[in-house]
């Protein structure tokens, strides 16, 4: 079944298949005639059986037989004799069986069998016997495994018994993805039910680690065991219930007067204040996984002023309208002339009801509370702010100024993590288990190089690091960032076919490293002199160079009233291919990601304050890849110059995004409105769906195949607020 090389057909074989094709053609035309005329006689059924036995892939054939069964059973003259019903279904099973003999990987045939069985007139015992036969002939046929799950559910065979079956199959030949997969399905069920002998979970998982380790060590080149191992690691690492990871504004944050007075001095967030002229500000909740059900009833507000309590929450997802990792709502800013009090506290609570649910159905149940201080709406300040053109050149950025050296200006924003009471023993077993797996992985890799071993080690190290930091942020120096990055670097070289994946992972780890080191650094400083001493000097040095602060610059240009003074995170020229750790960047207003290898900007949609974004000189291949920007309502300055938009004829990301065929989006688009020089602009659909939601002031798009004059005039029409397009002032 497996590992048989394909051979070029001999002339006889070619002749044979030509004859077969001719025979099939005539059968098919007879069959279709019957089908169209709705003839379901015995003779007609025989023709379809012949056709299906010769070509089990003929879906229409199977559907015809379903119709025939329903038609024949519904005839009044047959009057529901049980013998007759049984014989009809028995015949269907016979046809499926001979079709499966022809190709027992035929989807249509297996599906038809399921359909027959679901009617409840056939013996499941017989099916099980048949399956045992099939699964002995080809132990890895996933169709048979699939069908087995269907039958065992129908027969209510206990999961323990099926688990033993997978053990037997794996013992026979452990190179069996289907068996490992079924094992994970069955165990998930048993662990969830806490079935007898399958509790505690820790004991069972430890046994499973040992079991699969035999496969990994015996033949590390075989990937099936590694996949099961990955599932085990996931079971060990993942926290069942969703958690609130971060928020904007963070807890205890005073928007009018951040506690850290240096912020005011430096004016980093002057632009934030500037944005308040709209009278609203965004409140973002970032969860550990995608959740649904964030609404006015599941998240409650308490405020000393009159806020609109029936708030609308929007999921920040480009392709899912009910489920997202980040959710946003917009709060009113109290509009009063009196200058006292300076700011009002707003208390946001969630977890009091079970309405917020993860995609796996587990509710958010942790009671959390965030208090933020909302400034008063200063309508005078909002007036007259004029923006000059943003230039992303190095001259316009300077290192953070001296006042900041005493205390980290990022302090207040970096402590975004929701502090919760952590039971120090909570993850003891998990951390030990992962540490143990790391040791085994290292041992294996000390003998020879296995790509999947390296990948697993990198994943394990990151998982272990995350656990250690979660338990006690002091243990940050135990995270082996350098080793993980080195592992991915060598994987990129060893396995060029999958280098894109490794580059993505590399980017995520890199960003995590940057942010985690900063958190530690800022915490250390924030706790004052005493805690400063406790942090090893080498870590201080390393973090001050490599941490986020090392990538932070202040924007300065000649005009004092523009974005000048704004804090910019400059992550350019870092070979990043993906964006991660977004939960730590919710406060960002200015982001420079130029000169990287980004193909996608997934995750960026959660940065609701983002106003200035530089994506120039990346590998963005289409406007659909920029879809997350649609959700960034604050975005005013965008540089997507020198990318690959329009260079690829096939947009591989298209299937993920909203389609022009969808009735929910874009039905209001009037093509005529944007007609340029009598040319149709229907092929600018993606650009339209992206830009029509944005209020851009400045856009750079030069250096993309799509950016010709015609397109630019289209943009000009589409974006009336645009002041600069590729540096040219628009009137």
């Amino acid at each position, binding site marked *: 079944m497996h590992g048989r090389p394909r051979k070029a057909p001999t002339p006889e074989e070619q002749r044979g298949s030509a004859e077969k094709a001719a025979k099939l053609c005539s059968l098919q035309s007879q069959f279709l005639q019957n089908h169209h005329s709705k003839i379901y006689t015995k003779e007609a059924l025989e023709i379809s059986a012949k056709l299906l036995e010769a070509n089990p892939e003929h879906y229409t054939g199977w559907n015809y037989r379903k119709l025939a069964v329903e038609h024949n059973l519904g005839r009044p003259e047959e009057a529901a004799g049980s013998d007759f019903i049984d014989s009809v279904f028995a015949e269907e099973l016979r046809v499926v069986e001979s079709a499966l003999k022809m190709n027992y990987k035929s989807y249509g045939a297996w599906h038809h069998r399921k359909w027959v069985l679901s009617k409840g007139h056939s013996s499941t015992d017989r099916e099980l016997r048949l399956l045992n036969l099939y699964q002995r002939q080809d132990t890895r046929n996933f169709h048979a495994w699939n069908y087995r799950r269907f039958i065992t559910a129908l027969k209510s065979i206990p999961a323990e018994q099926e688990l033993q079956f997978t053990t037997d199959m794996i013992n026979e030949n452990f190179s069996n993805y289907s068996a490992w997969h079924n094992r994970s399905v069955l165990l998930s069920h048993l662990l969830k039910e806490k079935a007898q002998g399958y509790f505690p979970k820790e004991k069972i998982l430890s046994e499973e680690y040992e079991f699969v380790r035999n496969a990994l060590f*015996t033949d590390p080149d075989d990937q099936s065991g590694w996949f099961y191992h990955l599932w085990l690691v996931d079971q060990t690492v993942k926290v069942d219930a969703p958690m609130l990871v971060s928020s904007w504004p963070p807890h205890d944050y005073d928007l009018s007067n951040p506690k850290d007075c240096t912020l005011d001095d430096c004016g980093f967030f002057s632009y934030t204040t500037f944005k308040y002229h709209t009278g609203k500000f965004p409140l973002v909740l970032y969860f550990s996984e995608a959740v649904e059900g964030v609404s006015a009833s599941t998240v409650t507000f308490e405020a000393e002023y009159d806020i609109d309590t029936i708030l609308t929450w929007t999921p920040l997802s480009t392709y899912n309208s009910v489920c997202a990792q980040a959710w946003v709502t917009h709060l009113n800013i109290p509009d009063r002339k009196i200058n006292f009090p300076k700011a009002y506290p707003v208390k946001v609570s969630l977890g009091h009801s079970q309405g917020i649910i993860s995609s796996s159905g587990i509710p958010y149940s942790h009671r959390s509370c965030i208090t933020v201080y909302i400034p008063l709406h200063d309508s005078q300040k909002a007036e007259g702010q004029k923006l000059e053109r943003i230039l992303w050149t190095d001259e316009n950025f300077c290192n953070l100024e001296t006042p900041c050296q005493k205390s980290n200006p990022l302090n207040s924003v970096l402590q975004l993590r929701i502090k919760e009471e952590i039971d120090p023993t909570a993850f003891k077993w998990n951390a030990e288990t992962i540490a143990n797996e790391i040791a085994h992985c290292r041992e294996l890799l000390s003998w020879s190089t296995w790509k999947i071993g390296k990948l697993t080690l990198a994943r394990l190290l990151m998982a272990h690091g995350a656990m250690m930091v979660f338990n006690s942020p002091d243990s940050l120096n135990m995270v082996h960032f350098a080793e993980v990055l080195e592992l991915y670097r060598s994987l990129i070289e060893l396995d060029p076919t999958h280098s894109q994946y490794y580059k993505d992972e590399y980017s995520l780890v890199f960003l995590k490293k940057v942010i985690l080191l900063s958190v530690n650094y800022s915490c250390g400083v924030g706790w004052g002199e005493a805690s400063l001493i406790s942090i090893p000097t080498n870590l201080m040095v390393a973090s001050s160079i490599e941490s986020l602060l090392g990538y932070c610059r202040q924007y300065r240009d000649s005009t004092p009233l523009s974005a000048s003074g704004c804090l910019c995170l400059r992550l350019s020229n870092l070979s990043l291919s993906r964006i991660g750790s977004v939960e730590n960047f919710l406060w960002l207003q200015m982001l420079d990601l130029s000169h990287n290898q980004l193909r996608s900007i997934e995750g960026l949609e959660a940065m609701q304050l983002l106003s200035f974004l530089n994506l120039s000189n990346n590998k963005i291949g289409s406007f659909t890849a920029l879809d997350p920007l649609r959700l960034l309502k604050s975005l005013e300055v965008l540089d997507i110059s020198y990318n690959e938009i329009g260079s690829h004829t096939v947009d591989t990301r298209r299937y993920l995004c909203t389609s022009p065929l969808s009735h929910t989006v874009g039905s209001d688009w009037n093509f005529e409105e944007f007609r340029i020089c009598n040319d149709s602009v229907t092929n600018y659909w993606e650009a339209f769906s992206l830009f029509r939601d944005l209020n851009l002031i400045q856009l750079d798009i030069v250096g993309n195949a799509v950016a010709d004059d015609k397109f630019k005039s289209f943009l000009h029409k589409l974006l009336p607020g645009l002041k600069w397009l590729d540096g040219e002032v628009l009137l």
Partner: protein
Amino acid sequence: MEEAIIEPTTFDLIVVGTGLPESVIAAAASSAGKTVLHLDPNPFYGGHFSSLPLHDLTSFLASQSQPSDARCPSSPQPDGSDHTSVHLATRPLYSALNVTSYSAEPLESRKFNLDLAGPRVFFCADSAVDLMLKSGTNQYMEFKNVDASFVFDKNSGGLNSVPDSRSAIFKDTSLSYREKNQLMSVFKLVQGHFEVAGSAESDGGGRRISREDLQRPFAEFLNRMQLPQKIKSIILYAIAMADYDQDLEACKDALKTEDGLDRLALYHSSVGRFPTALGALLYPLYGQGELPQAFCRRAAVKGCLYVLRMPVLALLADKDTGSYKGVKLASGQELFSHRLVLDPSFKVPLPLANSPPASLQNSSHVVGLRDVQGKVARGICITRSSLKPNVSSCLVICPPRSLYPEQVMAIRVLQISSNLAVCPSGMFVFYLSALCEDAVEGKQLLETAISSLFSVPTSGSPEDTSAEQSENTEVLKPTLLWGAVYIQELTMLFQKMYPDEEFFPNTASSDQIEDDSGLDHET
């Protein structure tokens, strides 16, 4: 016994003895259309390859341990005859026979089918199995899989299963993860080597081992892979089935890498060759004695004439040239043939074998089963319990130095249970064997193996075994009911016959006679 007259009196071939090699030749010659007479002095088929009831076995071994009583040497034939009679002497193939019964009640002799020359198993992919399939003899026999292989662990004194396949390595509980990885690497290396050798272009992952390396000792090759002794020992003795200690400086029979790899490949192609046999090894139902019988049956179907209980007393030689003419039977009848095959217990008379050289050089008319330097020590044990719980048949290897430091030879022990119809139900038969230089060494090898694997009751108190078992609660050794140890001379057939005739239709060459008998003696 009524003296029957055999008709006709002239044959293409006369074969004396119905042992396995003789039977194969008789069947092959008959299949090739030759007229064949097959004689045996015994009342049963199989000669030294038969399976016998308990008492018959001991009496046969005893009788074959004595040299035949010297009768009158070559006596001239009556006048007028054109040939002389040369008396045919036999030599004892067995020696140092030692039989002990520990059972209180006598064992039911008739319920046993004990192999004279065990242990003998087949690799599923063995050319002998191909021979049986091609010759059609497989239809007269039924084989069963040997359930498991074990290797004696000198440290624990217990038996570890031989991790002989990918899934066996996976399941094994005695190997460390490191050892699992190393053993599998060797298997993959071998597989890769043969894959590359098999295909013209080397696009697979395999890497061919250099010609130079192939000529080097296999033990050295394994050493260079930095395998621990334990893994090396499993590969050399339990999979490649080496006899001599391969780590000795002056190894008598150092396995070359080339041959070692071939043996590993044979083992691996045996695993799963037949859908009903999961392991690598086969054993016939009713014992090894079925094999020569099956070939005799095949020969008889093809027209071979069989006469049992008919000893051959003398060879007839041409008076002038001294070359072979025929045989003189115990009945007094004289029969003539172009060629003769004698079983290995005969001493081929010197004058006939040596002179005149011209006639024998060109075509050998008399084929004796030449003896080879060396002996094999054999043992048979009977118990009421298995060496391993829930295992009915298995092969146990005691590698060199596993039993005692001076042990130079590997010892093989085959356990067969009543489900192969060789003993009464509830009992187990064990066949032990080891190559040896002399009887003393052979006896030491087998006796140490027996005392290591079994609990041997002290004579006089046959049933009093409870004391030893309670002391040794970790490993419950089977208690010996009956045991026999003897030394057999190694014999092999090396001559080719009928080089122009096909050796069974569809068979490649007559070389296989050589191969088969060779392999039979090895295992």
